């Protein structure tokens, strides 16, 4: 219950998900009974903590079907994972090196976390940043793919599922073209990992990032998966404890993956919580979660279509989209919509959802976004639709 006596209707799961009890309990249990630093403590508790931390890596590897557990690197969040890639590519030598005349391709529907690191990289290296545009119905415009992804392309980085438009992108198809020209493929799976069964190899990714807090895990933990050959070629990101093989005053040699990219004490209990989270999702079944998401999204699209003056941004076919639905309501600003909905216990997001270019593409400055997850019920969608009707009457539109 929230202030005002309304039950919570949480429709902001694309922002962050709510946590199942097992995740909370696992984290509390770890802190109460197994807390020590990992890898460097020579005592029983240290062994327990290391075991819990490394078994979380196994769970994540299984969750994304990684060929090897060592290819799973823990980061702080998806943003850090993407920045890790863009930064180490800036320092890379050999095949992966990026320089003047080279091109990096992204898309117009990226989250800022998958735009800004590439802007920084291309600016620093004198390379060129290019992007796939969007069609009016919110899909990637692939009509110029063969020109856009060409022999100068070194990296293609794209989101699997859009956090604003909900669009599910044909990642494997784009990866095929990228690999034809020798580019590496970076996939932002922040919105895909919560909703779709993920198989990193089938997706065609060379590197793939997601964030723990959107897959019912805690904040403070993210994942970067990479193909071993690519990770081995990339130089270290941060220097410090754990990432070394040996250190002398003149120079050091580095640990192998994954530790090469995990300097310092990692987010231990967060990783343990993430392990419990992905196990929870796997036990429910990602196929079942995906089916639920499509059903709720379809129901929501039908309900939203009954609200006069409401326009959905992005694909209208629930089988082609994820669970985030952004929309506009004639005559009422998203901020005001969110405020009125909040007064009825309904939590949505208002603003640009860290996707300003995608909003600009559709000529809107901001939108309201509802996003569902495995715990969302049709009754909650009904509450949203009623809340939107109430919003229209409150602002005397229509």
């Amino acid at each position, binding site marked *: 219950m*929230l*202030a*005002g006596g309304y039950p919570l209707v949480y429709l902001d799961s694309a922002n962050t998900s709510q946590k199942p009890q097992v995740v909370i309990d696992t984290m509390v249990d770890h802190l109460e009974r197994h807390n020590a630093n990992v890898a460097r403590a020579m005592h029983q508790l240290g062994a327990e903590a290391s075991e819990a931390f490394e078994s979380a890596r196994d769970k994540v590897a299984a969750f994304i079907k990684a060929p090897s557990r060592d290819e799973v690197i823990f980061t702080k969040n998806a943003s850090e994972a993407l920045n890790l890639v863009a930064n180490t590519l800036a320092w890379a030598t050999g095949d992966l090196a990026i320089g003047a005349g080279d091109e990096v391709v992204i898309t117009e529907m990226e989250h800022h976390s998958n735009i800004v690191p590439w802007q920084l990289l291309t600016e620093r290296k004198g390379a060129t940043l290019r992007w796939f545009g969007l069609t009016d119905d919110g899909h990637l415009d692939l009509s110029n793919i063969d020109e856009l992804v060409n022999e100068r392309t070194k990296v293609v980085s794209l989101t699997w599922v859009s956090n604003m438009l909900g669009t599910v992108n044909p990642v494997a198809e784009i990866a095929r073209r990228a690999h034809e020209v020798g580019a590496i493929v970076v996939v932002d799976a922040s919105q895909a990992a919560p909703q779709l069964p993920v198989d990193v190899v089938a997706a065609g990714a060379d590197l793939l990032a997601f964030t723990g807090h959107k897959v019912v895990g805690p904040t403070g933990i993210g994942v970067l998966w990479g193909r071993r050959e690519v990770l081995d070629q990339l130089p270290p990101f941060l220097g410090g404890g754990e990432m070394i093989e040996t250190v002398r005053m003149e120079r050091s040699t580095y640990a192998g993956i994954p530790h090469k990219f995990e300097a310092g004490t990692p987010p231990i209990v967060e990783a343990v919580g993430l392990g419990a989270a992905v196990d929870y999702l796997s036990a429910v079944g990602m196929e079942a979660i995906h089916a639920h998401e499509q059903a709720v999204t379809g129901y929501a699209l039908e309900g939203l279509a009954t609200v006069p003056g409401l326009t959905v941004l992005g694909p209208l076919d629930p089988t082609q989209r994820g669970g985030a639905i952004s929309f506009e309501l004639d005559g009422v*600003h*998203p*901020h*005001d919509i969110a*405020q*009125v909905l*909040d*007064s009825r216990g309904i939590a949505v997001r*208002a*603003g*640009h959802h860290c996707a*300003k270019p995608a*909003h600009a593409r559709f000529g809107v*400055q*901001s939108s309201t976004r509802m996003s569902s997850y495995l715990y969302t019920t049709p009754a909650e969608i009904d509450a949203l639709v009623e809340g939107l009707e109430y919003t229209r009457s*409150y*602002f*005397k539109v229509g």
Partner: protein
Amino acid sequence: MTNQDLDALYQEIILDHYKHPHHKGLREPFEAEVHHVNPTCGDEVTLRVHLDGDVVSDVSYDSVGCSISQASASVMTDLVIGRKVDEALAIHEEFLTLMQGRGSVEPDEDVLEDGIAFAGVAKFPARVKCALLSWMAWKDATAQVMEESH
């Protein structure tokens, strides 16, 4: 939050200014133009200031944003246009104090006029930035003009 809180936030005066904003549109002449953005929500204002000696002769603006930010720009122009710069800055201070008071400051209608309608906004920390966007833009632009004339 209750319905009373909602009604305290969305006073009639605010909704009136939102639907029929005063002094909106960009005009000549002006000595400074600024562009301010609320990075969390994307609300934007482009604002021009025209000073005539030490008098705020005109403030014109173009903006996109929520009812609170739009109404606040409208009320702000009503309050500062035609005043001496130091008087207008004092009103700015008074409005800032009201907004930052978390609902504990009693607004002075003699000074703030329609601005008192924003007292309810102060209880919504997420919306205070909306109410302050154009005021901050005005202060910034005015400071730029003053600097140049020195």
